[in-house]
């Protein structure tokens, strides 16, 4: 185990160094794609904490992301608050929204939790359309401040953010709390019989997931300069996040980030295929889910464990 851990650490370190050097030979266009992909990676990792560890399927990761993104956008565009304050406020509102959603929803069993989270996305979407006066409605809103106008700097911000989130979430998943969370997700009765308050741990996981999703959502809009339903809230975005996490590997955290980067980059490279693009990416995702239900990283991890 310690061998795997150390090997994993070195592999990760090499990947991060290579990624950090990419601006020296990639075009601004490709860097832009990767920048968006890194934020997406954080969404997927935060989702895996819920699905892979707490064992709860959250169909509405974009509820948490959207809350963070729109809170930050509204405060920046309408009240002119600085970016840092807006991001913190976005993260905070995502956590509050997450608690308000999770506390009643976790009382439900099985598929009902997932359905509640799905409905939450639709509610948020409707609220934004109804209060178009301050949210920009279906057109979206432009934020006056951006992180940077330099593609390289934006890229490094995103990469640093991804690495930080990955380290924190991976560390959490390997900690004592992560162990309890896994036990709660896999066998709630068994975990309760060992003296763990399963609901408390699941709500905490939801809060952590919301914190990272909301922060990443807020950061994303200060990279793009706009907030719109189609980019941070729509259910299709939620589906992409879920596919990315499952593709990379359930219960691996890091796999989710790789899955997200792979999904977005693949989408971009297959763009010449036109309409077929989405189809091919979906077909690959479907094949992975059917034949490697543990995901690509999960599959590799199992092989190394079994050897």
């Amino acid at each position, binding site marked *: *185990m310690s061998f795997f851990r150390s090997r994993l650490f070195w592999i990760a370190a090499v990947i991060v160094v290579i990624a950090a050097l990419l601006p020296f030979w990639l075009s601004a266009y490709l860097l832009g794609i990767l920048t968006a992909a890194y934020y997406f990676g954080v969404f997927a990792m935060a989702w895996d904490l819920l699905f892979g560890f707490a064992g709860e399927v959250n169909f509405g990761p974009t509820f948490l992301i959207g809350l963070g993104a729109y809170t930050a956008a509204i405060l920046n565009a309408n009240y002119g608050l600085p970016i840092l304050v807006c991001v913190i406020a976005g993260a905070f509102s995502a956590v509050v929204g997450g608690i308000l959603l999770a506390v009643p929803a976790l009382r439900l069993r099985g598929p009902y939790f997932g359905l509640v989270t799905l409905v939450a996305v639709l509610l948020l979407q409707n609220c934004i359309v109804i209060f178009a006066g301050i949210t920009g409605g279906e057109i979206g809103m432009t934020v006056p401040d951006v992180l940077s106008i330099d593609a390289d700097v934006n890229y490094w911000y995103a990469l640093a953010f991804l690495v930080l989130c990955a380290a924190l979430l991976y*560390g*959490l998943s390997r*900690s*004592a*709390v992560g*162990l*309890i969370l*896994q*036990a709660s997700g*896999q*066998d709630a*009765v*068994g*975990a*309760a*019989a*060992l*003296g*763990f*308050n*399963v609901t*408390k*741990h699941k709500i*905490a996981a939801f809060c952590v997931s919301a914190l990272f999703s909301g922060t990443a959502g807020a950061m994303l809009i200060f990279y793009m300069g706009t907030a719109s339903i189609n980019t941070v809230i729509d259910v299709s975005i939620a589906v992409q996040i879920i596919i990315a996490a499952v593709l990379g590997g359930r*219960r691996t955290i890091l796999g989710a980030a790789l899955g997200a980067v792979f999904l977005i980059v693949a989408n971009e490279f297959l763009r010449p295929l036109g309409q077929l693009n989405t189809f091919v990416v979906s077909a690959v995702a479907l094949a992975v889910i059917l034949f490697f239900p543990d995901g690509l990283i999960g599959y590799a991890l199992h092989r190394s*464990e079994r050897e």
Partner: protein
Amino acid sequence: MTGEARLQVRDLGKRFGGVVAVKSMSLDLHAGEIVGLIGPNGSGKSTVMSLIMGLIRPNTGTIRLDGIDIASWPAHRIARAGVSIVFQHSRPLQRQTVLENIKLALLPDSLLRLATEASAAERARTIAEQVGLGEVLHRHPWTLPFADLRRMELAKAVARDPKVVLIDEPFAGLTAAEIKIFSDLIRTLRDEGRAVLLVDHSVKSVAALADRVIAMYLGERIAEGSAETVMQNETVRRVYIGGKIEDVERKAPSTARDATLLDIDEVEVFYGKANALERVSLRVQQDEFVSIVGLNGAGKTTLFNAISGLVPYRGAIRFAGGDLKNLSAAAIARAGVVHCPETRELFGHMSVRENLELGGGHLAKTVRQHKLAWVFDLFPILEQRQAQAARTLSGGEQQMLALGRALMMQPKLLVLDEPTLGLAPVILGLLSKAIERLRREHSLTLLLAEQNVTFALPHSDRVYVLDHGRITWHGEPARFADEMSTGYL
């Protein structure tokens, strides 16, 4: 025993819909004592255990741990208060090692302690060595043999130094040598001053270990005392064997006995690493009533699930000459092998009538109506309750409905799994009459699994005894009383 009991259960009651699982149950558990809680399947003993652990909440009664009422507390709080449980089937964390799985049990229920304390790792190691897992600390659970998984569950349960340890079917799936080792481990728990409750279906398996045995039936305590007293108790004998075994005159089947309808040939079933059936072979002729008797855990339900295509098996099962192996459960049922499971599997939110009509879903409308009328004639109570949701029925009524629904499917072979489970004697009488009538008025082949020998014998042309996954006896019911009745319980 002197002094206050460590665990004091009084007037405990629990209902599930229309079924009373536990009613006014009381028991005492002292420190440094092993108590066996026994009862046939459906007697409510597992429910009592779940109620003590807080996995389900009681409707009435108190559960005092050192004088504090813990009834209705959530399970995690009860666990922290000092009650532990060893589940029969474990679901360990598969990506973690044995040591990490045990460490899990030692973690505080806190969101802020991210690192495991060094003392926890040390203690986990000590416990693992105590239960004999010292050699496999760093292996993953899925690489372990079954007995080691049980050891790991035991280690997790005692990790937090509990006052009360509940153990569900302590010896299920273990070999004789392993049973001895586990018995010693359980005695250690007693010597450490813990109160141990063993929940099992038979007196025999806990007799050597328990200081005291409490027998349950229909959710109530029916006997208490030493293992010998309980084993000789008239009520207990009646519950398990059904009292004095009498052979009832049966009509010989009208047709000639040469057509084999069901042929089970050397069937073996494994659950993970546990061997549930060992080379079981048996035959059922056309129009014959055959029963398989055995205590719970003997493998009866597993055998029936194999026949119905619900569990994978080695060996062959042939019905009316055709191999059932590659057929789906649905195809087997359509071929005429209708399984009436011990768990009844009714559609709880549907009405009685809807349940019955679903059973006859493949019949033409007129035939179905005719069949329905016939089932209502067989069980008149179902006609009165036809608009009621199935889950609100009493246990006996639910069993009649399950049987009625199976009959609606027009079985060629009815596979009836423990119809007497958890039912009062008066209901047994009604079911017995219904089966008698089926035999008189219809051409039906029956394969019956029972623990209650008195219920099974009068209806049987032949009897098989199943014990720990093996057929140990086979013969005419008349010979059963002489050859088997003493060794059975």
